[in-house]
């Protein structure tokens, strides 16, 4: 249980770093150039880690099913939806909804046990817990103070402002 929590938090911290790095790349290139690079890097890194830990076993894909090959498409779907949502809603609102939808889908998945994952029976505690977390996300993102992305140029120091306008 504790190990699971720690691993999930490591993943979250790295997602945060990755988002910042990817944003930097995106500012100089474009969203498809960035996506291609990011997935390519992820592929190489996963392959190398796999070779280190599993050796030649990496290439014996037992019980491979056809749809496994296509699951990578989901990642591309994420990019398309994120780019559109951010364009239409602005980053703050888009991200608030994205995070909420992530949690909602997670609860749904646990309760229904789709794709043969172990079912975690639905309890009211879980629903209340998720709603409190969503409340936290909304307060965090929409509560003001953290003047994210909307008008970075306005709040930036003159030198930074110049850099932002150049982008």
């Amino acid at each position, binding site marked *: 249980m504790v190990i699971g929590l720690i*691993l*999930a*938090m490591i*993943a*979250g911290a790295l997602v*945060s770093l990755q*988002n*910042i790095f990817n944003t930097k*790349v995106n500012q*100089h*290139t*474009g969203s498809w150039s960035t*996506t*291609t690079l*990011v*997935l*390519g*890097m992820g592929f190489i*890194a*996963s392959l*190398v*880690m*796999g070779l280190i*830990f599993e050796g030649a*076993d*990496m290439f014996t894909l037992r*019980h491979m099913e056809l749809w*496994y090959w296509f*699951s*990578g*498409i989901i*990642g591309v779907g994420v990019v398309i*939806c*994120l780019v559109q*949502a951010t364009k239409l809603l602005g980053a703050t609102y*888009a991200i608030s909804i994205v*995070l*909420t939808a*992530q*949690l*909602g*889908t*997670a*609860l749904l998945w646990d309760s229904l046990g789709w794709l043969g994952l*172990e079912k*975690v029976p639905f309890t009211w505690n879980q629903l209340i*817990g998720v*709603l*409190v*977390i*969503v409340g*936290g*996300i909304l307060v965090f993102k929409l509560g003001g*103070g*953290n*003047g*994210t992305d909307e008008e*970075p140029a306005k709040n*930036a120091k003159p030198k*930074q402002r110049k850099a932002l306008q150049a982008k």
Partner: protein
Amino acid sequence: MRGIIFAILAGACITLQGVANARISQDIGTWQAATVTQFTGFILALVILLFARDGRKQGFKEVKPLYLFGGAFAAIIIFSEVTAIQNIGVTLSISALLIAQLFLTFVIDSRGWFGVIKQKMRLPQFIGIGLMIAGVIILKL
């Protein structure tokens, strides 16, 4: 309205990605699952890039080299997320993941690390993180 639908789909797909990886890992192993899904995603993105031709290739040279390797984190992200989902379920995994993600972003923004524009953190951000942690505790009651 379209924006909201796109945002909901994006969030659902992010979770679905984790779940699909967890499922595929059961059969072929976690590193294998990470490699296969990143590979097919990469190929598809490359094809789209060839058609969309967005952005500038020279742009890559302007980026600080370190930032080009952000994608490599995916190997550890997928491994950790999959192992977490298999151990503690999807809801708890995603909750803990999001708290760590928002918290680190919050620290980086308030310190201005990696050259991000420094942002003042006020009460709402602290209350928000507090609520999220309270929510996880309720999940486990």
